[in-house]
């Protein structure tokens, strides 16, 4: 029982991390209709900025993370305005390729830009280094304060995002753009602004996620997170903005509970579980089948 509860609590940080990393993938998939392979790199890029400010310029962590997130927002907007927007006529795999080219550029530029970080590979700072101990159902459990803060940030951030999507004019425009861009344009929606801000928000969320991983900082650190993010999208279903978050909750639980049985093969076991679910429900747990007219 203790192991069961503790494993659940240990998954909380990864749930927060995966949700924040994945929401950007979903937003970009819905508006730009491509899988964004540069997503992880956008996050890592701003994590490098954050680490640079915090570790070498003595800035407090929350300020560093805010500035990193704002930089990622600007970068996201610029990527859409400069490149993705002009690749509308390219087919699906071509658009994937554009994001892959971006990924290669980011991957190459980062170590060259931050020589002081790549030579030392420091760990990213945390919000807090203390553990909170508490008892629940008669079991002694603990949670790191850092994980708790990450979870709170993720919940608040995603709530604000979903509020914006549901109740604001911008959110309505985004949903219209996601369902049909040309028609949305005809209705007078500034789709360019919408997709740009979408890319910005995607960058912002993944930047917060990457900066709060507390992992050792290197250019490829978000690779696994990104792949599990894609799998979470497929697991939850891509037909609504919220469904992939369900995948993001499930995948860390799968990973951590299978790690209890076999730490070495946790990835394999979880993947087989995910595969079985996808084979039973090809459009994801909460997805709907898109019916196409012939």
């Amino acid at each position: 029982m203790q192991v069961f509860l503790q494993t659940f609590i240990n998954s909380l940080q990864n749930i927060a991390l995966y949700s924040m990393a994945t929401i950007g993938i979903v937003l970009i998939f819905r508006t730009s209709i491509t899988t964004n392979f540069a997503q992880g790199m956008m996050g890592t890029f701003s994590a490098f900025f954050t680490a640079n400010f915090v570790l070498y310029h003595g800035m407090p962590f929350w300020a560093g993370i805010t500035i990193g997130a704002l930089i990622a927002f600007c970068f996201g907007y610029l990527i859409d305005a400069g490149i993705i927007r002009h690749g509308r006529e390219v087919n699906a795999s071509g658009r994937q390729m554009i994001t892959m080219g971006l990924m290669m550029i980011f991957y190459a530029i980062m170590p060259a830009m931050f020589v002081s970080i790549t030579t030392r590979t420091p760990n990213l700072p945390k919000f807090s280094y203390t553990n909170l101990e508490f008892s629940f159902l008669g079991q002694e459990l603990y949670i790191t304060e850092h994980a708790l803060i990450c979870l709170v940030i993720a919940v608040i951030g995603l709530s604000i995002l979903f509020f914006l999507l549901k109740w604001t004019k911008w959110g309505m425009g985004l949903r219209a753009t996601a369902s049909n861009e040309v028609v949305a344009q005809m209705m007078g929606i500034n789709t360019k602004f919408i997709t740009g801000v979408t890319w910005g928000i995607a960058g912002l969320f993944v930047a917060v996620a990457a900066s709060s991983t507390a992992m050792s900082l290197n250019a490829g650190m978000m690779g696994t997170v990104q792949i599990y993010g894609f799998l979470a999208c497929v697991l939850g279903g891509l037909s609504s903005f919220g469904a992939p978050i369900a995948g993001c909750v499930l995948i860390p639980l799968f990973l951590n509970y299978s790690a209890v049985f076999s730490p070495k093969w946790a990835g394999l076991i979880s993947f087989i579980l995910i595969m079985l679910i996808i084979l039973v429900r090809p459009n994801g747990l909460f997805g709907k089948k898109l019916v196409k007219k012939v």
Partner: protein
Amino acid sequence: MEKNVLTPNILRVSGTETNRLRIIRHPFFGFIIFGVGMILVQILQKFGVVNYSFAKALGQTAIYGIAALGFSFLLGYAGLSSLGTAGFAGLGAYLTGLILNTYAQVPYFVTLIAVLAVSILLGVSVGFISLRIEGIFLAIVTLGLSEVLGQVFLNAEFTGGPNGMRTGYIRLLPNLLNIRTNISILFYIVTAILVLLMMLTSNLISSPTGRAMLAMKNSTSAAQAMGISLLKYRLLAFILATAYAGIAGSLHMIYGQYTDPVQWTIMFSLNILAACLVGGAKSIWGILIGTLIIFGLTPLFFQDITLLRNNSWIMSVISGVLIILVVMFFKGGIIQLFKNLGVQIRIRNEKKKEYRFGKDE
């Protein structure tokens, strides 16, 4: 024989003329010339005209070309998106290493057949998955499959984990041709297999099979209405892709005599996809040009420039920018550029003829 005697002299001459042209126009002619050219590079290397590293990198690029050729069945013909190439090729590499390390007496061609069998099994299973899952979902699922295979490479006992796996001693035929580090013979084998697979690909894509796959790419519903079995051709496309990737992985293993899990990550799959798109996914020559650009530029040419060798990140940035530019501005890939050039030249020649001899009425 009798016919030859009876035909007038002039006709016979023109007949042989067209025969000769027919040989040149035959698609295999180019492939064989290409193979001879590759072998020539290796021979020149023996005489010291070409760098050793250049010849070695050329062989490596040819191996990646095989994987890209297989991938083109999925991307260019069947219209299926897959990001599992790394896993498929890695499986071939590790299987080869495993067999060669455990049974030293087994000749390489038996190993290759075993690798092919396993790859085909994998292809069949992925093909069945592709019947239920489509589009970007399929890409992500194959990507996950490839990542899982990567985890097996990293964690299983026989693979050597992150330190990688080595092979030393390769036996081509039983009791004959034992090769340890003779790169040039391996180079000839790679070239021969590449040329053979190019011929096979060329035959397949111009046969009814290729046409059926193209129909499936353009519209699955229309293809089904024409009586094309989705099951059959999707399975076939995946089997071809995994088999080619398996061969490429196997050759990679014996050519470099080393492999580790880092080589078979998502980057490899994406690079193969990039090679197909940059060159032109529907043309064999396009795929080879794409492979040369994506995999070959750095080890073949950029390595000799001091500035680029010292700042290796510049090369990555250049290839990233190149991919974005080609994908955005040249839809058919680089091969389309050559085709357009050919059309331009033909139009110009016709205009010249018109100017000289007047218009045909």
